[in-house]
């Protein structure tokens, strides 16, 4: 510790001053004047306002590349989709293209196929995310704490996530097809992929198998930040294993849990590959992404397809909003008292 900090203080003066100077350059001319002042002030502690200004600049600089890339790549496509959703636009009848306002939304929202797909998607999302959170937490604990063969366990556990989804889905389909698959032969009563309930169960199983490692990996990295001392102290004070888990680990892991839940839910709600391969949406197993895809790419009905995309987006946005509100200050970007 002391060695590290002393190394830091040696390097600090020249390089540090340069960094601040560089950062000031691209900004407006008036701020150039602050640089020498800052440099001089470094030995005494600089006044708060100077510090704040430098902090802002650094914040912008650090965020700029990421923000630029994201906006440059997705800005136009997203706006274009929203624009399309307000038009009657079917590539099979390009002459009939016109601005229709919210008409597409009414068409979609009064369509029973949409609501069936919506129900299926909701069911899949809720069940898979709930199961994955529990399994993922267990898996994370095993991967994090195990005494034997840690590397092997971690790698093995992550392989399902690493396998190309389409291939994994094909292997499940193969396994559940009577005659060709080991699973279908185990439970030999009819063809499970031709009935709605069993199809949905298989889709969820495939989803859970594939994405639990994603959850577990995020949770495990959160676990890595739980201070060992805190756990030891808790157990010295007589806390049971469950108490240590709920009172010590969970609070520290809250941000990691939020991120894992949030991104898993967003992904689960847009489930596509597995359904596409396993049932192609037969027997009312289509998800909302499936029917959006069918309209956009297959049906070439850009207006309705885009409307569905925007509706999926709005639904997902509501889910995300609820999560962020539920987790309050654990959400990234929220200003809480923990800073500094």
């Amino acid at each position, binding site marked *: 510790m002391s060695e590290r900090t002393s190394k830091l203080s040696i390097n600090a003066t020249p390089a540090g001053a340069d960094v601040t100077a560089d950062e000031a350059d691209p900004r407006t001319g008036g701020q150039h004047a602050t640089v020498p002042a800052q440099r001089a002030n470094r030995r005494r502690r600089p006044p708060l306002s100077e510090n704040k200004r430098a902090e802002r600049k650094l914040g912008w600089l650090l965020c700029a590349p990421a923000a630029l890339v994201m906006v440059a*790549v997705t800005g136009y496509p997203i706006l274009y989709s929203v624009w399309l959703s307000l038009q009657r636009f079917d590539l099979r009848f390009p002459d009939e293209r016109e601005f229709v306002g919210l008409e597409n939304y009414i068409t979609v929202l009064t369509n029973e196929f949409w609501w069936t797909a919506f129900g299926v998607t909701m069911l899949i999302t809720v069940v898979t995310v709930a199961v994955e959170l529990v399994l993922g937490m267990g898996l994370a604990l095993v991967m994090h704490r195990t005494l034997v063969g840690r590397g092997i366990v971690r790698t093995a556990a992550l392989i399902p996530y690493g396998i190309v989804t389409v291939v994994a889905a094909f292997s499940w389909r193969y396994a559940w097809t009577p005659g060709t698959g080991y699973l279908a*032969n185990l439970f030999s009563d009819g063809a499970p992929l031709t009935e709605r309930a069993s199809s949905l169960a298989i889709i969820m199983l495939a989803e859970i198998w594939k994405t639990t490692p*994603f959850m577990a990996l995020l949770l495990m990295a959160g676990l890595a930040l739980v201070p060992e001392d805190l756990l030891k102290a808790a157990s010295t004070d007589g806390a049971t294993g469950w108490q240590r888990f709920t009172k010590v680990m969970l609070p520290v892991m809250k*941000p990691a849990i939020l991120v894992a839940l949030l991104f898993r839910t967003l992904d689960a709600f*847009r489930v596509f590959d597995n359904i596409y391969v396993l049932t192609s949406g037969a027997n009312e197993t289509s998800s909302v992404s499936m029917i959006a895809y069918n309209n956009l790419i297959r049906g070439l009905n850009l207006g309705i397809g885009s409307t569905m*995309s925007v509706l999926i987006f709005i639904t997902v946005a509501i889910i995300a909003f609820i999560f962020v509100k539920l987790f309050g200050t654990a959400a990234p970007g929220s200003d809480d008292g923990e800073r500094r």
Partner: protein
Amino acid sequence: MTDTKAKLQWGVMNAIVVVFALVPVLWIMSLSFKTPATLTDGKFIPREWTLENYRNIFATDQFVRALVNSIGIALIATVIAVVLGTMAAYAVARLDFPGKQLLVGVALLIAMFPQVSLVSPLFEIERQLGLFDTWPGLILPYITFALPLAIYTLSAFFKQVPWDLEKAAKMDGATQGQAFRRVIAPLAAPGVFTTAILVFIFCWNDFLFAISLTSTERSRTVPVALSFFTGESQFEDPTGAICAAAVVITVPIILFVLFFQRRIVSGLTSGAVKG
């Protein structure tokens, strides 16, 4: 005594995890070793073993080219996304500046928008810019769609890092930038490597962008090449070949995870803030 008992318990739990994770993978492997005649016999273990499927996929240049493309594109995209994501996440977690909420919101918005609907506008843009069917043409969208996850994951970790260390470094005269590079970055390593694994897998597995934004071997990635197994060559039964290819392309993932999981070490920071 208790030690061996604990080891045994962990052994059992590890075994459950490994079985849970690997049985479907072994099924794919088993399919890849089956001969066309026994492919549909429904047995978990092949009755006749063959390497024919592996020979077939390496017989043409197509698969190898796709493998090279996939590795190159996924690695470059991962490195850039993690670097940009780390920078932005640090700012989000630690610095106070106007527009922070906006950045977080925009990132989430991008993560939420259905990618299906973004494909055709992207296709048009890339055609006009000459990026279509090139490495950057895929790397850019991958970075973009990996960034929200990277920023969120990393800023969640940055919030948990013991900040007293940064304060200590600053008190010793380090600037904010140095505190970031020398103190926080190493401490946030578990988060960074976790993100790297997730981003790499995302790029590696992507099918939608890869099939829409490429047209030749120049930049076609493995998942897309797989779909062409079904389409063109050996129409009668490509299952064996697909499974063999799936096994082959899982190897880089295993290597990548094996290499990086060591960095997700526990207790990295324990005791660091005590003295």
